[in-house]
């Protein structure tokens, strides 16, 4: 890490860096919570374990990111307070992460779309001007690699499987595609992070994400739907109706019994 790079990261107000980190942290947390809903319900024991393990990795990544965001925020909130004591409009995950599990195909398609995004994003973030973020990214990247192997492997089996599995995978893709634009379209905060080398420009991320997804879809014999204009802005705190229900379940215990320990 050069002194110049460290200065570049420091030039961005901590409040902005915290706000941007919450997009990453909340995406991992919400997706991890969604996947954990499969525990005890997956189609086979191996998949139950796989989804539970991926959920655990994602929640672990969220914890590292939230702890760091809390430090930057400087208001004494730790990762637990950030996870359990914010309401939906204060969550900044991308809207795709909060979409319901649906059937196994929908869970896999959602996972493929987000795994590809996290994989490319964390790969770039290992070179971030923010050294603490680069360290977290290097850790997360190792885990994202095998998450992608799992989800993209299942996409091929579903897409290039039976007529029924193909139909369900295509239906899931058609239903979720409208949420992908949010992953790749920068707003002011994304651009500010990119201009200070904290995060990659989303335009560069877009081409790598699109190439990765196109290859996976081709192997799976699935069609990418036409681009859709999207009104979703989860990363600005405007969510679909599903997030509130997810948070109600996730946050129930610490809110009902503040400070509970065991």
């Amino acid at each position, binding site marked *: 890490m050069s002194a110049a790079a460290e200065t570049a990261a420091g030039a961005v107000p901590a409040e902005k860096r915290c706000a941007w980190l919450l997009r990453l942290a909340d995406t991992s947390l919400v997706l*991890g919570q969604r996947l954990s809903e499969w525990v005890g319900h997956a189609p086979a024991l*191996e*998949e139950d*374990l*796989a989804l*539970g*393990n*991926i959920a*655990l*990795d*994602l*929640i*672990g*990544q969220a*914890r*590292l990111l939230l702890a760091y965001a809390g430090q930057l925020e400087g208001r004494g909130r730790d990762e637990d307070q950030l996870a359990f004591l914010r309401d939906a409009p204060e969550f900044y995950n991308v809207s795709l992460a909060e979409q319901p599990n649906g059937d196994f195909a929908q869970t896999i398609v959602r996972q493929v779309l987000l795994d590809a995004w996290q994989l490319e994003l964390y790969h770039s973030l290992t070179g971030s001007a923010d050294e603490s973020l*680069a*360290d*977290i990214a*290097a*850790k*997360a990247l*190792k*885990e994202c*690699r*095998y998450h992608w*192997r*799992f989800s993209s492997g299942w996409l091929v089996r579903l897409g290039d499987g039976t007529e029924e599995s193909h139909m369900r995978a295509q239906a899931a893709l058609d239903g979720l595609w409208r949420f992908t634009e949010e992953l790749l379209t920068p707003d002011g905060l994304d651009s500010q992070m990119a201009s200070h080398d904290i995060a990659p420009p989303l335009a560069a991320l877009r081409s790598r994400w699109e190439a990765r997804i196109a290859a996976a879809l081709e192997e799976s014999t699935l069609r990418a739907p036409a681009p859709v204009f999207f009104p979703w802005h989860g990363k600005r705190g405007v969510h679909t109706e599903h997030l509130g229900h997810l948070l109600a379940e996730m946050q129930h215990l610490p809110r009902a019994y503040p400070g509970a320990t065991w």
Partner: protein
Amino acid sequence: MVSGAVSQAGVPLEQQVWQTLETVMDPEIPALSIVDLGIVRHVRVSEDGRTHVGITPTYSGCPATELIETSIREALDDQGIADVVLERVLWPAWTSEWLSESGRRKLEAYGIAVEHTPNGRVACPRCGSRDVQRLSEFGSTPCKAHFRCSACLEPFDTFKCI
């Protein structure tokens, strides 16, 4: 750094800390100490006499991390080394290459195979056959994958390479 610090037992303090950490077992793989696992990154005694132990998580969400921290404190307390400062180290990220040679042997004796790097070959820990199948890249803990031996037909865990 107080390089000359000596413990009550008469051995250099850092050495005594390392020896004690070798007795702290991974709660999920009790055959393996945290030193064998390669998660202890440093032991330092600072100017004020406090012992600093740096540990790194194997996986971001490994639920054993906190229990391991408690076990480290307890083990060092028992040796009269109190007030330990535990430091979480993220970089460089843990890799299965840090598993010690003795750790590999202990795992295999315990019934957990270890992927042979760099060719990824796995041998059944029970019968030694290399005719094995990977059933899932995920297992009973984040650090293990699930395999089956095609020779003796027994399922077994394999320590993942990351």
